């Protein structure tokens, strides 16, 4: 980094702006979580103060846990996200390996074909996707969601992973070939472990939109059995418009798992985004 001396006022100015924006970014989240621990009187009387012993109340959480089938929704989301993630990473890495490792006719065309999906959102095909799922009897199953999210995640995964696979040393792979390893062994035993960090990046990028998606659960799997957490929260919040304790508690419950995961993985995520820079 540059070693030029920076003037003190400029540093203070930078901190002031960044701090202001941090407050803007975090304030709604904090205010929702803070108020979820208050009684109704506390929520309306003094919305901007943290819960005091007088206003502390868990009534919102007891309502939510008593009413909603949130554990079940949570399981659905988990199954859908983990399964889609698995297929995106496996299929994506395989295709990326084929595209980056071998020269064959149509290689470039295939790469472009798969990259098409990065720009064109899968949502535009919803009408025909629904017809397809109805025809194959997959409506209201988690399988439908897993298939759609796998297709949705693949283009970006192939694109990012093939960039990284190009960096794996050829000597290593050729040494494996001389030792008589099959192409499959080379991929699974040599290449995959080496690109694990970039797989983690792709995983985070793929996971967030899947976990947060509302459109496809709403259209393909709205039944009670297959509701995801996002859809469940949406419907639940709609039902309890007047019960502010319950709404705030439900929102906090929806925020917290994502927030905890983010705090754990933020280093990985940010490194992934800025990886182009820190080659």
């Amino acid at each position, binding site marked *: *980094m540059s070693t*030029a001396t*920076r003037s003190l006022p400029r*540093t203070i100015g*930078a*901190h002031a*702006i*960044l701090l202001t*924006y*941090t407050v803007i*970014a*975090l304030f*709604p*989240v904090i*205010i*929702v979580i803070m108020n979820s621990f208050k009684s109704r009187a506390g929520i*309306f009387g003094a919305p*901007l103060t943290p819960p005091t012993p007088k206003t502390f109340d868990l009534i919102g959480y007891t309502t939510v846990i008593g009413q909603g089938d949130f554990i079940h929704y949570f399981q659905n989301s988990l199954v859908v996200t983990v399964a889609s993630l698995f297929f995106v990473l496996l*299929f*994506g890495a*395989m*295709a990326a390996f084929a*595209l980056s490792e071998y020269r064959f006719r149509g290689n470039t065309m*295939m790469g472009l074909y*798969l990259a*098409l*999906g990065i*720009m*064109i*959102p*899968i*949502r*535009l*095909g*919803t*009408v*025909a*996707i629904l*017809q397809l799922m109805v025809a194959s009897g997959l409506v209201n199953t988690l399988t439908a969601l897993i298939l*759609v999210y796998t*297709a949705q995640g*693949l*283009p970006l995964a*192939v694109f990012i992973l093939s960039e990284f696979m190009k960096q794996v040393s050829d000597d290593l792979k050729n040494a494996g070939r001389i030792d008589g390893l*099959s192409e499959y062994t080379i991929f699974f035993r040599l290449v995959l472990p080496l690109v694990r960090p970039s797989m983690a990046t792709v995983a985070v990028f793929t996971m967030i939109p899947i976990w*947060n998606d*509302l*459109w496809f659960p709403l259209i393909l799997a709205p039944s009670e059995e297959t509701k995801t957490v*996002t859809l469940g*929260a*949406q419907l639940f*919040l709609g039902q309890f418009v007047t019960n*502010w304790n319950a709404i*705030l508690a439900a929102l906090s419950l*929806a925020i917290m798992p*994502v927030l905890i995961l983010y705090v754990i993985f933020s280093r990985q995520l*940010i490194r992934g*985004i800025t990886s182009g*820079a820190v*080659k």
Partner: protein
Amino acid sequence: MAAASKRPFRWHIGVFLAPAVLVYTAIMILPLAGTLQLSLFRNIDQSQVFVGLANFRTLFGDPNWSVGFWNALRNNVWFFIIHMLVQNPIGVMLAALLSSPRLRFAAFYRTAIFVPTILSFVIVGFAWKLILSPLWGVAPNLMDLVGLKSLFTPWLGKEQYALTTLSLISVWQFVGIPMMLIYAALLSIPEEVIEAAECDGITGMSQFWKIKLPLILPSIGIISILTFVGNFNAFDLIYTAQGALAGPNYSTDILGTFLYRAFFGFQLQIGDPNMGSAIATMMFLIILGGVCVYLFLIQTRLRRYQF
């Protein structure tokens, strides 16, 4: 598709490619093509009949559809303009500040500012709905602190403000993405370039405008096209905050919500897959147009600097 070479047929290439290509083709490309095709058909007496561009004539000409469509398109354009004017400049500014050398707490700011981006629309939509609600007084109380209480109105409930308010909420949520991408681009500028600029006495603001900004223009191009695609495909935030009717009085209706109502029907309106397909086709053409403009007009003119 499969490998054709002088050497024996290399089956493993096919095996490696097949799963991804099959799933992608079956679930993404074919339905997309199917949707485009459906937009040329109409359901007459329980069977699909080819009607050419009649659905599009209805969409543009029949007042029952065209009023809603142009309204949604206009709103969507405004939604996009706000993102371009607010989200991207703020993102660039935050990134420029974050990348200043030896800034303390940079990792903390980075992590905190990115938090809204990982939250789902359902959470964001509802949380802001509560905060802006006149019932709960968080927004009026806050404005009172700076003496602006008289300016408070229920923004989400007023036709003239609702769309702008929602756009700003969406900006609040997604500002982390341009920030991160520009931040990455700024970090990749080699030190020699910056040092050379400093030797010539170019520092501070003028260094940003004259040296760094031209170097990060390709990244600004990328965030613009990502914003474009994201905005013309948006649905969730409007749906959670204002419902499928995109109230008040359709003032926040964008193409995504319009498509949802056309396809599934809502309340008195009956769902019509063919009209839904026609709208999806329009969205496809708009997004494709944007991507083409980016690829052929913008990207080719941006000088890429190889370091």
